[in-house]
């Protein structure tokens, strides 16, 4: 679970690290990914685990479009820049939730018989639910892929460079908007991947994103804004804390542990675990 939190959070961290924008519609991106995965399963009988790349691709396009239509303009605001970003992405989240209700009704849906759903695997005497295990493996693979991508490819370097100094980058002939749009696409694609996997073992409904979004923000902040590695580490911490709290407190209070750990960490290190000053 922690690795999936990490995967959701990495997308958010990427967007944030890239351009200092917090995407308050992140949870809704996840919700959309789960629906896409659901419909691919119901109409084309494609197993969510196989459709994950398709979902990621769809979300990539969606993320880039959101950047070009909304975020690009939000970033131009000179006054109250922070508020404009928060409320334009938040408005988007409300629209997406409304659209989901309108198109798909508020009903709870689930994917009944997926290839991995409901099975467990025994590893060294510990029983693990298969979808979660596969999710964890996908998350690790995606994280490794992202790491290589950022550090080893031209586009990755362009991302980093644009983050460091958008002005200088323009001089070398890199289109800032294109790089940022691709960055948003990439961030959204990671959420898409997470959404496709989670569609197997979570109910799908219009507000599902909201419950994960706050945990995603906490995860990113815990790891430190601007650090993709931190987000992944934060995810693991959050997963562990959640599992531990579940043993001590009633299930309805399990997130309290996560929040408490977050507060504790930022009070000691106001920049998060791996955040740069």
């Amino acid at each position: 679970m922690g690795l999936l939190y990490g995967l959701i959070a990495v997308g958010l961290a990427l967007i944030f690290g890239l351009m200092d924008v917090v995407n308050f519609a992140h949870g809704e991106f996840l919700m959309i990914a789960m629906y896409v995965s659901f419909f691919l399963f119901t109409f084309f009988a494609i197993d969510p685990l196989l459709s994950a790349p398709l979902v990621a691709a769809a979300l990539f396009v969606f993320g880039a479009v959101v950047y070009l239509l909304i975020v690009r303009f939000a970033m131009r605001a000179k006054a109250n820049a922070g508020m404009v970003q928060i409320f334009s992405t938040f408005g988007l989240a409300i629209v997406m939730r409304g659209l989901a209700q309108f198109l798909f009704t508020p009903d709870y849906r689930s994917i009944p018989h997926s290839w991995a759903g409901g099975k467990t695997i025994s590893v060294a005497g510990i029983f693990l639910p298969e979808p979660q295990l596969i999710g964890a493996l996908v998350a690790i693979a995606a994280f490794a892929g992202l790491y290589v991508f950022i550090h080893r490819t031209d586009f990755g370097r362009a991302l980093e460079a644009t983050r460091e100094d958008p002005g200088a980058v323009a001089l070398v002939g890199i289109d800032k908007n294109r790089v940022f749009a691709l960055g948003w696409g990439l961030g959204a694609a990671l959420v898409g991947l997470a959404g496709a996997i989670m569609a197997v073992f979570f109910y799908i409904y219009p507000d599902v994103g909201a419950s994960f979004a706050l945990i995603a923000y906490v995860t990113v902040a815990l790891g430190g804004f601007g650090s993709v590695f931190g987000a992944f580490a934060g995810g693991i911490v959050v997963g562990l804390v959640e599992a531990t709290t579940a043993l001590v407190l009633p299930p309805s209070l399990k997130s309290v542990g996560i929040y408490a750990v977050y507060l504790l960490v930022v009070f000691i290190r106001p920049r998060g675990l791996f955040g740069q000053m």
Partner: protein
Amino acid sequence: MDKNFAARRRRDLIIAAVLAGLAALAPLVVKDVYVQNILILTLMYAALSQSWNILSGYCGQISLGHALYFGIGAYATELLFTKFGVLPWFGMLAGGVIAAVIAMGLGYPFFRLRGHYFVIATIVIAEIGLLLFQNWEWAGAAMGITIPVRGDSWLKFQFMRSKLPYFYFALALCSLAWFVTWWLEDSKWGFWWRAVKDNPEAAESLGVVVFNSKMGAAAVSAFLVAIGGAFYAQFLAYIDPESVMGFQFSLLMALPAVLGGIGTLWGPVLGAAILIPMTELTRSYIGGSGRGVDLIVYGALIVAISLALPQGLVSLFSRAKAKGATR
């Protein structure tokens, strides 16, 4: 400049007094209970947003966790009333004081956090409050509290026959929040807040006074919001954690100020006057289908206004005025 500022402040005060006077006469014309309801909510959100604006707008410490104080106000009033028979007036004050104390207690560690870390910390703390109340059996847990009917009087702050007393209380609260903002704007705190907001590094050299002024902003802001929460609880006669402490309240408090103009005296009032009737009307005319059309319209408007007018609707007036001045 100084003279202009003083003149502007005097003018603001006169406009506010005239508006409050006109609003007080509104019930003579408006007899429809549905419309009265909208007016009450509009005034309440204007008051809440104005209070939120003190900490988040003027002082620049953007809080998206003010629902915590709202909920505390509501719960303090109703727990004292239903469990100990304390009159809501005292419960309201108690709620305000508790909220202010908590806000200052939280401010101590929170004000060290910058930017998004601060915003997320405020969301998280409100969420913890929500979860704790949902699991607190004595306080009704997730079921909440139904407020028993004990009469129809100002003494008990319950009114069955007419909504007008609620209207006048909301108007008074809104005026109070406005007046406090007006008064603080020109105080020592007001100047420190602007310093904190515009240039945190430079403000840091002022050290303790800045910290104290932030604490003051947090306390005043939380106190007023808690009074709003107490009012809302009496008005609805029913509370549960989600409906008074949910994240949506933190947002609903912030939105009027954002739309109207953050850190301005008139922004929250203007924003609430447009946003709340619009929300209520879209909800009742196109939201009845339960299919989320109202959410779509509402969200799209937020996106459009925040992109097109980053300084809020108030900036339309000042822009027009600035043009006139240069001519």
